[in-house]
């Protein structure tokens, strides 16, 4: 099977000659269609940098990233925009939704930007909202929703266009445990029932335990890889915790 995401020799260096930070130093990994992959690591290990490179917000210093067969580092301008709206879906930590649009319209926005048939937009947006269980907030504005509802609306927007890859950077960072459970449950469902490919960045072990596979980063390098296989979530969670304590970093981040 062809990988959806193929990262090869990825390097990212910030700053000039004197004070440069090597945020990523040669990463190699692949994500296949239908996978639900988590990226973990202590603060400063390069998680956000990795995600920014994949989501074309940032340019890698060296290496290649292929998404669905197209090389990202070569993309510019129009092609870049087209790639973003056709191949990717985003869920950010916050500032996800447009404050001037309703829930329905926020979901619909991803479709209208992609030039979808106007008559089909509302139906498709409602369908996505149903999948993520946010039908009741469709006519509300973001400030009238809870944080969890906002993130699920963002998730609905991320998947409504049927992207090759959904990217989520600490989507649960600002949520309480109940909302976190709900969002992850829906993402899990999306992954299992709709076959969506998801790459999720987190420093929270509970969040990570919903994934099928976890990549651990340390100092910009791949430290370890963990597969859930047939484990249940509790067992997987414990295994994650053990890797995290191996990794070091402050435990406050983890629990």
């Amino acid at each position, binding site marked *: 099977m062809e990988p959806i995401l193929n990262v090869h020799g990825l390097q990212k260096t910030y700053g000039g000659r004197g004070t440069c930070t090597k945020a990523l130093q040669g990463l190699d990994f692949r994500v296949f269609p239908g996978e639900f992959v988590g990226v973990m690591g202590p603060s400063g290990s390069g998680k956000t940098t990795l995600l920014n490179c994949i*989501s074309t*917000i*940032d340019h890698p210093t060296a290496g290649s990233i292929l998404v669905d067969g197209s090389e990202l580092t070569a993309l510019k*301008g*129009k092609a870049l*925009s*087209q*790639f*973003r*709206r*056709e191949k*990717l879906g*985003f869920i950010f930590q916050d*500032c*996800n939704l*447009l*404050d*001037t*649009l309703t829930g329905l*319209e926020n979901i*619909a*926005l*991803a*479709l*209208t*930007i*992609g*030039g*979808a048939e*106007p*008559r089909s*937009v*509302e139906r498709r947006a409602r369908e996505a909202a149903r999948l993520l269980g946010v039908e009741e907030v469709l*006519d509300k*504005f973001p*400030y009238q929703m809870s944080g969890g509802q906002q993130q699920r609306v963002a998730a609905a*927007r991320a998947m409504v266009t049927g992207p090759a890859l959904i990217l989520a950077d600490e989507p649960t960072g600002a949520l309480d445990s109940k909302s976190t459970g709900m969002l992850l449950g829906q993402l899990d469902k999306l992954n299992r029932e709709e076959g969506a490919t998801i790459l999720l960045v987190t420093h929270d072990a509970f969040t990570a335990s919903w994934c099928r596979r976890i990549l651990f980063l340390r100092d910009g390098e791949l430290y370890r890889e963990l597969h859930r296989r047939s484990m249940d979530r509790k067992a997987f969670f414990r295994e994650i915790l053990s890797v995290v304590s191996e990794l070091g970093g402050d435990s406050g981040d983890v629990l």
Partner: protein
Amino acid sequence: MSCKLAFRNVGRSIRDYAVYFLTLTFGVCLFYTFNSLGDQSVMKFLAQNDNPNVEGIFLLMGVFSAFVAVVLAGLILYANQFLMKRRKRELGTYFLLGMDSGRVSRLLVLETLLIGLAALISGVALGALASWALDKLTVSMFLATPGEIFSFTLSRPAVGKTTLYFGIIFLLVMAFTGVNVSRSRLIGLIRSNRTNEEVAQRPLALAVALFLLGCVSLGTAYAILLVRGLLRIDLLWFLMLGLGTLGTFLIFRSLSGFLLRLTKGHPGYYKGLNMFVLRQWSGKVHTNCASNTVISILLLLAIGVTACSVGLNDTITSAVGGQSPYDLTVLNYGRNGDYEQADVSALFLAAGVDPQAVFSKVESVTVYYNNETATGFPEAGFYAAISLTAYNSIMEGRSLPSLSPEDIPCPTPDPIVNGPAADGVVVVSDELASRLVPRRQVVNINYRGDAATVDALVRQTLEGAQDFTGGLDIMINYKLDNYYDLMGAKILVLYMGLYLGLVFLLTAAAVLALQQLSQAADNARRYKLLSRLGASETMRRKALIRQVALAFLLPLALGVIHAFVGMKAANEVIQVMGRVDSVHSSLLTAGLLLLIYGGYFLATCFGAWRTVRTGED
């Protein structure tokens, strides 16, 4: 260090807050241009000729300038307030870095001073250019004016007055800034970068009801205005103003909810960024409905005043120009109120002017007392009668159509003399005229050769002559006097109209632009998200332009409709003289509108786009 920081900040401000700087510069430029009229060649020329309008022009200019200064002061304070809001975070950082509020205040005051100085210098420079152009325009409008007196100068009194007035305005701004900073709390400054737009859902029925109410009250105001005319100032007139304002306000208030529902059912709503633009606009139009109302009214004033002054200017030409068919008219009122015919040519010869040499035509006519019972025309409106033969010979001399016996008695279609007495004469049959009592003798004279030279010669001679009239009551009406009167009146109307119109236009455009730019920070966040969702740069730029265009066009649309109705009413007032909405005035008004309003629109688009782009990945 403060000084260096201030200089750097000013440099950045001029780039980032171009609209603020533009407004200051335009304000100074306008103020200088209209206060430098005293040094303009046409005005100097008129003053030399003892034109009675000159004093009026300067008096009115002084009054208007005071008013304009107040308007500009308000505008600049408003603009400064907006600037402070945008810089709150930056100021918060200064506090965090350990500057005390005194130093931050000093920094800001220094900045205001520098920006003020820069605006003053560039404004006066631009003003000198504008006043030169205005002078050229005025000169070209009055063909008979000698062209060589015209030069490019910097008016010292105007520079002084501009510096004084704007100095006071900038002092005010500095005072406000200082007070503002010393009262602000750090936490408020740091937290001020996020605003959450409250977009309440309003029931459609309410929006429709408000919209209809707005239309009805606006319609009523229009009806009152059109039926009763512009100038009957009483209780109903104020009611008309109130209803007009209320109507405008209600339409702005309800339009967003109303339009949004209308467009939502349309498939185009879900096309590209349409939905986003509409939402952006509707949220703002609702919260800004009060200021939009003010902007609409300012635009009405700007359009109305400019168009009326230009239109009136054309009207004055047609009304007054027809009253000077001769180079000179001598009106002989007789001796002690009794009619007495005189040989005017002989009088001139006696005084030292040879009529044969300098006059091409001397034509004497007698007009009679208008006896209502005989002519059928009231004496109140028609002070004199003239015989058909005399009238026709006058007309023949000017190659104008003559009257036939069937047409009379009737008022003279064309003036028979120079001056205000031109109207109010009835043409009657020769037989009837012979039965009327003679009233006065009028002698129409045309010059031979160069009119200006002969005119000067005649005036000089008559001034020097002792008892030119030989005891008769004689009045002389010179064409050139009428011409200069006309010119003075035209300049008065045109300049005042342009001055006020431009200030109103500037204010309206600047307030709109500032409002748009004050949302730039919020917009930057939204457009960044759009970019991440894959909206291409072209798509985003178009959306931003449409958003700004909507904000600019709506108040303009209402303002233009208001102005249209208002000018219809104004037409009624001066219908006797002509129309104010001539093609000429409409074109000039549209041109100025396009220039200033369009200029601000472009500046706003560029400014907004700059902010949006810098916030992008």
